[in-house]
């Protein structure tokens, strides 16, 4: 077969075959829906980031700086709600998963394209209701909505609770769609052992989404009933139990950490292989550890409740079970490093984010084992130590992987390349800025600085100033990315079909892909990321 003919780009792509606004709004193309989700989550990241920046500026001085205490309470709640529910949970599965998962499997689309579009609009409806609640009067409970305060808070919490409840349906539908797609839409030759590890990661995530999200929906609805009807389920004076809320909330929200992190790990696996020019070390172990994390993640929710009044016996069990997660995570980290070892490393921007991811995940993971130890957690509970820990492991990991995916698949999605030097500068700024923002918070927490406090003692100021300086670097880095990616969309040089020389299956389609991904049936006769066989770029 003629390689040059195979590598030719499709003239009609998913971007130019229909260009009207309605063709986007009513599209059933998984790629367009992925792009719409991408726009949605980037807007949420911007909104959540602005709230974070206001918080950091307020904490520049020990006393009042910019905003009132009540506004501060609302700001950290809105920051958490937006970042968790509107950005981190849908960021990778709904945006990049939607775009590349069917292409990786050699499919024309997902199993239920209409449901896929519905999922986007449900997300949008939930997001709008949540933002409406914020504009109405905000909420001051923190993103965890803990009872009993959330049942009596005077702020407009109910629309926010219902907004998050609605977003949950989007998550469930997307998960169901991906599970069905993996089972039923694989092209001939796509055996279970050839499925890319990003797809395995999304599959594992989808299982968690389908199983756990209904519990979140239930508990949010119960809090709404408590607020609107005085149901009394969490009210001790009426035979209820506020700790029951925490059980149900964390039964979802702890696995939700893996809804965020597992897709991130999938991205990292793809990028590590592509830029090390090697197939993954330990394919089966990586796939199995994905399900190990997904499974064990369900047995560890009680480690959020060590000081809630939960029994010592239960805390001990949950503490031990929580540490098991570290084993499966370590398997992945060892395998990524082993893949890079002896590889032909090409240090491009996506790989830079991967290195940032591995550092943050290691650091955050090790502090995770520390906070899973009951006696230590009692000291650190509700302090900045925990804030720093979960920002390292959850936010750092998701952000790094999100940016790695954005830079790795940008040419695939839009057929343009971005300026390498500027992107390198932005990546270094963001990784450095992230460390400077959150490393001081470990020290603050260990000194006893409680989270969500408006004021603090004078001697802690230098650490807060350092943290704010890091946040400013982060803001600068994100601003830079926004500028060069928007520039690239219009003026960036046109990309080659496979600019990275990757052997990932998604590069078998054009960049950008044709409306139905392939112009003829793709053929998967080698393992994914097999760099040992000579192969010219090919586009089906």
């Amino acid at each position: 077969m003629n390689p040059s003919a195979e590598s030719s780009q499709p003239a009609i792509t998913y971007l130019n075959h229909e260009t009207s606004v309605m063709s986007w709004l009513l599209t059933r193309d998984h790629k367009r829906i992925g792009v719409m989700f991408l726009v949605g989550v980037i807007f949420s990241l911007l909104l959540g980031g602005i709230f974070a920046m206001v918080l950091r500026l307020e904490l520049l001085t020990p006393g009042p700086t910019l905003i009132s205490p009540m506004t501060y309470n609302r700001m950290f709640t809105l920051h958490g709600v937006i970042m968790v529910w509107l950005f981190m949970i849908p960021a990778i599965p709904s945006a990049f998963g939607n775009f590349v998962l069917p292409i990786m499997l050699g499919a024309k689309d997902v199993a239920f394209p209409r449901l896929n579009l519905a999922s986007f609009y449900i997300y949008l409806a939930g997001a709008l209701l949540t933002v409406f609640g914020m504009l109405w009067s905000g909420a001051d409970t923190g993103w965890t909505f803990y009872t009993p305060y959330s049942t009596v808070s005077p702020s407009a919490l109910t629309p926010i609770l219902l907004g998050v409840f609605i977003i949950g349906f989007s998550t469930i539908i997307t998960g169901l769609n991906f599970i069905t797609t993996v089972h039923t839409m694989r092209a001939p030759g796509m055996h279970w052992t050839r499925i890319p590890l990003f797809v395995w990661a999304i599959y594992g995530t989808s299982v968690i989404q389908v199983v756990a999200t209904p519990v979140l929906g239930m508990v949010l609805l119960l809090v709404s009933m408590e607020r609107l009807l005085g149901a009394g389920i969490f009210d001790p004076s009426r035979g209820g139990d506020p700790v029951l809320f925490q059980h149900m909330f964390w039964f979802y929200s702890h696995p939700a950490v893996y809804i965020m992190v597992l897709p991130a790990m999938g991205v990292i696996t793809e990028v590590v292989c592509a830029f090390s020019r090697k197939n993954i070390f330990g394919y089966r172990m990586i796939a199995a550890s994905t399900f190990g994390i997904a499974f064990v993640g369900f047995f560890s929710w009680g480690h959020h409740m060590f000081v809630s009044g939960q029994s010592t016996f239960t805390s001990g069990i949950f503490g031990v079970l929580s540490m098991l997660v570290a084993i499966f995570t370590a398997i992945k980290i060892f395998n990524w490093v082993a893949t890079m070892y002896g590889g032909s490393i090409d240090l491009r921007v996506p790989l830079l984010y991967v290195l940032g991811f591995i550092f943050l995940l290691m650091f955050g993971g090790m502090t995770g084992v520390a906070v899973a130890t009951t006696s230590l957690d009692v000291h650190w509970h509700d302090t900045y130590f925990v804030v720093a820990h979960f920002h390292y492991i959850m936010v750092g990991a998701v952000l790094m992987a999100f940016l790695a995916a954005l830079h790795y698949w940008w040419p695939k999605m839009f057929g343009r390349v971005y300026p390498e030097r500027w992107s390198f500068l932005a990546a270094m700024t963001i990784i450095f800025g992230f460390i400077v923002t959150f490393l001081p918070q470990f020290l603050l927490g260990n000194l006893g600085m409680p989270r969500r406090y408006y004021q603090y003692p004078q001697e802690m100021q230098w650490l807060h100033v350092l943290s704010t300086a890091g946040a400013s670097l982060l803001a600068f880095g994100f601003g830079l990315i926004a500028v060069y990616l928007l520039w690239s969309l219009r003026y960036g040089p046109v990309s080659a079909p496979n600019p990275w020389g990757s052997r990932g299956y998604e590069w078998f389609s054009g960049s950008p892909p044709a409306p139905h991904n392939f112009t003829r049936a793709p053929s998967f006769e080698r393992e994914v990321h097999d760099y040992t066989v000579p192969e010219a770029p090919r586009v089906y």
Partner: protein
Amino acid sequence: MAEEKKKSAWGYVGVWAVLAVLTVLTWVLGTKLKLGPMGLPVALLIAVAKTVLVAMFFMHLVEQPGARRVVFPVSVLFLALLMGGTLIDAMTRIRMARPDGIEDELEPKRPASTRTEPPGSPNRWMGN
């Protein structure tokens, strides 16, 4: 089109009989045999068993191929995990010390049978 194979109804009658026995068992355990703190978990266990039977046989899940058959047992497993973890906590909490007679003062309308057993009670499992 292949003609659908006609199945005997006796299997459904058998499942119905088991459901009826389990219903009677719930009533007997709830009214005749006092199980104390085990009453609620046992009643829930029987309810779950009945639900599984209904879904597997009357909703024909048992006849489904492959992954579809796994969905329901997995859901039951996770529900059991949620309830199990929560109940273990509730049953092993250390009860805070309270002066004698404060219960009636705090919760005069709540039936005594629904209150947590005091420390040292033989009905409490752990945490005393």
